[in-house]
């Protein structure tokens, strides 16, 4: 009798190997799904397909040499990771950064945050089956890539920050382009609101789907927009301000229910807040040097360790650097937000439909190479 039950159960549930080659697993994620019809019984994300050993590389080279790597972990927010690493090392060594450089970094970082969110916006709608918003947001994102390209010479892996400043000063062309972008986006927000946020199908697809409550978020270490969508207004830029964020006026948008719609709305307003930050930073941009004059060519920080957290586009990200006094770090660990955000799938996916699994995966906005490093 018992044996019969087992065979029946095994016939009822079948497993689906979603990914790593699948159109919507965003990179190389593999999710093992146990399905009962179209309902998910069990979900198990498998990671590691994009491992490149960035942390180990960090230990084998000088601090300066690790700079290009930082943009390549989360390739969508390269500027933010780059910025965070520079800040961590500056704190470790004790380098004074000129005011102008701080503002420039904030502008570049926030531009990168908008570009990352725009890409998420487009691909999320793509996951939901709406193709057109994807091309609209990519058109907007292209403007940001052009702006950042004009100062850093690169469209994705910027490596723009240096210890003590940035590689090159921003000119009037950069400021004009940025202002034009901000102006363009003002009307775009209304367009997206009409096209997507108020779309009845979109609302039905996202409301109440993939709810992450506060308790679950705390257990898995979910951060960033996903955490803020549950109503927790935690943002490193606000709670432990770095650079000039404490001098700028911006809101930390929060949701209430923690479903996919809230996550969408939080990211949507975050892009608008980033625009506000850029606007203010451009307003208050001081003159002076863009890179500190007295930065030693060869950095050898004193013995010690440092944990430095910053807000990447996906949540709390941190560098943990241990120095043994030598020219390269003894240990270079990176805490990435996507890891916690992804693993929450274990608890969120069961009970939902296959179609929702894609929607939820898209809504938490993971970048797999960031997890694999």
């Amino acid at each position, binding site marked *: 009798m018992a044996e019969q039950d087992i065979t029946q159960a095994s016939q009822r549930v*079948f497993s*689906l190997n979603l990914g790593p080659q*699948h*159109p*919507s697993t965003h990179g190389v994620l593999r999710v093992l799904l146990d399905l009962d019809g*179209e309902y998910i019984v069990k979900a198990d994300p498998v990671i590691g397909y994009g491992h490149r050993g960035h942390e180990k590389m960090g230990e084998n080279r000088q601090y300066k040499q690790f700079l290009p790597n930082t943009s390549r972990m989360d390739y969508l927010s390269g500027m933010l990771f780059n910025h965070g690493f520079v800040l961590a090392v500056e704190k470790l060594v004790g380098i004074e950064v000129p005011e102008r450089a701080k503002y420039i970094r904030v502008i570049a970082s926030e531009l990168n945050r908008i570009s990352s969110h725009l890409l998420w916006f487009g691909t999320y*709608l*793509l*996951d*939901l*089956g*709406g*193709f*057109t918003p994807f*091309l*609209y947001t990519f*058109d907007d994102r292209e403007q940001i890539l052009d702006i950042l390209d004009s100062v850093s010479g690169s469209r994705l892996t910027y490596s723009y920050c240096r210890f003590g400043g940035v590689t090159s000063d921003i000119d009037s062309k950069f400021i004009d382009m940025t202002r034009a972008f901000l102006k363009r986006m003002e009307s775009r927000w209304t367009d997206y609101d009409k*096209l997507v946020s108020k*779309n009845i*199908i*979109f609302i*039905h*697809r996202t409301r109440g789907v993939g709810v992450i409550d506060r308790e679950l978020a705390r257990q898995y270490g979910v951060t960033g927009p996903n955490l803020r969508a549950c109503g927790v207004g935690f943002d490193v830029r606000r709670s432990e301000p770095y650079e000039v964020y404490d001098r700028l006026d911006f809101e930390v948008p929060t949701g209430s229910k923690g479903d996919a719609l809230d996550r969408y709305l939080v990211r949507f307003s975050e892009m608008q807040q980033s625009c506000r930050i850029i606007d203010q930073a451009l307003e208050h941009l001081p003159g002076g040097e863009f890179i500190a004059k007295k930065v030693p060519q060869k950095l050898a920080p004193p013995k010690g360790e440092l944990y430095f957290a910053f807000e990447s586009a996906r949540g709390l990200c941190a560098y943990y650097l241990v120095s043994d006094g030598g020219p390269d770090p003894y240990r270079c660990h990176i805490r990435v937000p996507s890891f916690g955000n992804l693993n929450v799938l274990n608890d969120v996916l069961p009970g939902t*439909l*296959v*179609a*929702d699994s*894609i929607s939820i995966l898209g809504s938490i906005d993971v970048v797999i190479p960031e997890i694999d490093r």
Partner: protein
Amino acid sequence: MSEITSSDWFRVILGLLIAMGFSQLNALFLVWLERKVAGHIQLRPGPMEVGPHGLLQTIADGIKLMGKELIVPLTADKKLFVLAPVLVFTPVLIGFLVLPFGPNMVIRDINLGVLLIFAFSTFTVLAILAGGWASNNKYALLGAIRSVAQNVAYEIPLLLAVLSVVLMVNSLRFSEIVIWQQNHFWSIFLQPVAGLIYLISATAETNRAPFDIPEAESELVAGFHTEYSGMGFGLFFLAEYTNMFIVSAVATGLFFGGWDGPFGGLGIPGVFWFLFKTYALIFIIMWVRWTFPRVRFDQLMNFSWKVLIPLSLANLVLTAVIVKFVR
């Protein structure tokens, strides 16, 4: 049945041959149109390289598809796998037999024309199920299952909507329905609810976005035709566009006055009015596809069983009562 003569057979066979040629050209044109419409909606030009404004692009694509190997997966049911793309295309062709393109431009003006089209279009889902099942692929199977559930759910409101018009006109013969509309009003003005239900159900019936869940590429890779390559895939693709033409042409005939043009046709032959209306409807279907995200499977079913079917039933009963009193 004794009155079928050899000239009738000749007419049917010739008609089918013309239909075959027309449906291929039409599908090629529609694929191009779809890409152009999508392109312009998305602020890009679409295909531009092959021919003027990329007109020959789909022909090039077709030749490429024909040159490709039809890969049959090792674990697939080989006979069914090869048969399915053929099966999906044949019933679509039958529809051309009774479509009234103009006052006398119909291959066989039979008195059950409307019924014949819907009877045969139901076959399509069988072919999709066969293809999905024979592929022996989990995504294909899921797509096939979805397709069956969706088609069963949407055929009912579709037929109920058509039935309202049929009750009103008191005929299943296409040309009579069009002539009735010529003498009275277009049915869309008398039966707006049925017209709307028909258009929604027809979109779902042809697996078009936002109801394209059987081939939802972001969820099921390519749905029921995941394993198909070359012309196997090509036939599924062509069938989709031919199906789209058929449902739009039927909508034109049933709801938009067929070959009847406004103000006495303005001196333009009826066939052009018919084609114009059909392509206008197709354009709307494309427009919808490139605007909306996809609905979820359970929402799709709920929408049909809880909204469309009761609504179309109520509409049918109302029509029946009114028709009874008017006659």
